[in-house]
């Protein structure tokens, strides 16, 4: 294996040469469908040079490298804004789960390579209209057994389901036991009869989320991933895969330097905005917060490099950085006066205040709402008691609706 810094330099160099073809400027003005096609070409190019599936085993088409390699590459890739959003869920969670639980290894290898090359896309069918933070309360039913299964119900918030070929699905296989114990995990063909996908627009204008309906969709028992009734632990294992994802102390919004440059030409009461004490306080507080989060991230990387387990404080990033992004974006818009009113839907959130601001509420909910993150910190790190849960230990079908 080559040295980490040499590998990182190679990645940096390859990404730099890819920018003219795949970067933000090259994609300006494209529709989402056109952008997706550029994304697919980028994924294929990345696969061909060996920067795809970094942590996946080589026998499945991956690179067999460490999670540190992956975090480093993802961070570099984020900095140059490559069109990878469509493949984020697809290549992160489903592939390791398939490798681990699916018995037809040759078929898995085909799927992994096709997903890494951007030829196929996978979605994650977890959340439902009545089950978001409380995932185990989901209602989509899977009935059957060894002879095959039938799925009925509805998923919601399914990212990029409109482009997906396959999905991983958690469904209720036994409503007569407590909610965590009656779930089973499957993969599903999104083109199968009875699957209906309806994209809907988010408040910021994005069309990424979908409702997915299942009407008597048939699945073979070989599509089951993990034992019957163990779906919740497979789902948790899925969510744990992304624990060391690339994090961004700016909450995927513009950095403090951008705030300073936005304000540099502005005035308040006839004086430069950057001389205003209120503005200076905001700059200082947000910079100190983000500097702290960034130090936590860098320390975690060093720990991983030294073969140690990073500390639990890495889990603070999303909670603190996105709140900072939201408030800083608000202020950046306010301070520009009428200049803060224009909105270029779909602009890059790290470079545009309005887009950053409109997208921030989604970020505070997706991948763990603030309140759930605080619960996790309190319970898993600090050992505080769980919330009172009236449905605990009660058979699912006996929980009052």
């Amino acid at each position, binding site marked *: 294996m080559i040295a980490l810094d040499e590998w990182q330099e190679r990645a940096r160099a390859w990404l730099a040469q890819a920018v003219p073809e795949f970067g933000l400027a090259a994609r300006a003005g494209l529709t989402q469908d056109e952008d997706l096609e550029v994304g697919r070409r980028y994924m294929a190019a990345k696969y061909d040079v060996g920067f795809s599936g970094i942590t996946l085993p080589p026998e499945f088409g991956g690179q067999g490298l460490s999670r540190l390699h992956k975090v480093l590459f993802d961070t570099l890739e984020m900095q140059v804004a490559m069109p990878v959003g469509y493949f984020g869920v697809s290549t992160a969670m489903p592939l390791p789960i398939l490798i681990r639980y699916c018995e037809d290894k040759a078929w898995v290898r085909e799927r992994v390579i096709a997903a890494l090359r951007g030829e196929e896309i996978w979605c994650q069918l977890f959340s439902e209209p009545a089950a978001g933070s409380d995932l185990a309360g989901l209602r989509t039913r899977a009935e059957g057994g060894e002879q095959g299964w039938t799925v009925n119900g509805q998923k919601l918030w399914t990212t990029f389901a409109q482009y997906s070929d396959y999905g991983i699905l958690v469904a209720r296989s036994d409503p007569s036991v407590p909610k965590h114990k009656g779930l089973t995990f499957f993969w599903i063909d999104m083109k199968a009869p009875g699957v209906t996908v309806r994209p809907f627009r988010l408040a910021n204008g994005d069309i990424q989320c979908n409702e997915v309906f299942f009407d008597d969709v048939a699945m073979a028992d070989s599509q089951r991933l993990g034992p019957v009734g163990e779906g919740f632990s497979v789902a948790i294992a899925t969510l744990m895969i992304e624990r060391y994802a690339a994090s961004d102390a700016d909450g995927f919004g513009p950095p*403090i*330097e951008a705030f*300073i440059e936005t304000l*540099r030409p502005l005035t308040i009461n006839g004086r*430069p905005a*950057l*001389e205003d*004490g209120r503005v*200076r*306080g905001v*700059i*200082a*507080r947000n*910079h*100190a*917060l983000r*500097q*702290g*989060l960034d*130090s*936590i991230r*860098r*320390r975690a990387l*060093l*720990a991983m490099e*030294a073969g140690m387990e990073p500390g639990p*404080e890495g889990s*603070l990033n999303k*909670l*603190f950085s996105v709140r900072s992004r939201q408030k800083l974006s608000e202020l950046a818009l306010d301070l520009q006066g009428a200049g803060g009113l224009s909105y270029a839907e779909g602009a890059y959130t790290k470079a545009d205040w309005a887009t950053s601001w409109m997208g921030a509420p989604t970020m505070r909910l997706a991948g763990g709402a603030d*309140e759930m993150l*605080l*619960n996790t*910190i*309190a*319970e898993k*790190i*600090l*050992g*505080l*008691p*769980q*919330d*009172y849960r009236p449905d605990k230990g009660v058979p699912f079908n006996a929980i009052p609706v």
Partner: protein
Amino acid sequence: MSILHDETQQEIAAETARVLGARRDKARLLEVLDRCGEWDEGFWRTAVEQGWTGLAVPEDFDGLGLGLTELGLVAQEAGRVISGAPFLTYGHGAVCALLACGDEALQDAWLPRLAQGEVRAAIAFAEGTDPIPLCPQVEYRDGGLHGEKAGVAGALAADIAVVSASRDGTPVLVLADLNAAVSGQLERTAIHSIDNGRLFANLGFHGLPATVLAEGDAARDLALEMQAQMAVLAAHEQTGGAEALMLAARDYAVERKAFGQPIGAFQSVKHRIAELYGLVEIARANCIHAASLQGQAGFLEAAACARLSATEAYDTAARDAVQIHGGTGVTWEGALHLHTRRARSLAIELGNGLFWEDVLVTGLTGVAA
């Protein structure tokens, strides 16, 4: 210096925690609060015995030749148990000043004694609401100091002081031997304060002899560099204190029951504690980062970040931990007010939040306030 602590550094932190944990004396700390002029001398004896006074002094001057990272770890543990007579931080300030002045006779005279803990130092920069005045009112003329510095931490038991002053309108930093004062050259007026263990006093100078360490722009730069290094140590202390409060709140919330369950099961309580955890870890990360940049580019901004986030963490923890403790939190015997008081004294001592916001933003933007 790496931001990932090595084994030696981890050992320093663990050993300091062990030593301080064993000698923790809450009754004595409470007693000191009522007595202007008394302080936690036991902590100082421990600091001298353990060699903490010499940790960041070069080996040539009988120190251990380590730096802010190691001294910061000691300060963090001291902050956790509300120890830390002011002299660890201010002794380090004096060491910085002496190392920067380049006067070998002065260095030989004072650095080994600071390293051995034989002398205690105070730092007197602030005047009025200005943590580092550009043109101090205190004057230096004919080899002596004239004027007053108010609210100097440690001043009641310090042997030497580094003082900022003006000589013919030019700023100077001078070193004064407080014990050499004769016939009214020095007045120490004790302040009965919110945190008496910090030994606050107003220092009145009436011709106290002093030696110049730096002058002009060099004096200003050195004062800011010293302030930043001391602020990083104070930030470690604040972080230790904030963490202790956060954990006390956690323990209480697990133990105390109301409405049929531990109060820590209510989100209004557990989320408050989780937020504190976040503030503590962000402050800690900034402290580690700042200490690792000692002597390098970007140190001043990193120090400001450490100071701002540690002050926020300690103040927030002081408010919220008391709130979570309910009535127990506001009793004398419950002793949480030891932290509440220390959070305030440490926040005031080395420049308040506005001062550090301006240091940071001027550094980031190039625009002064």
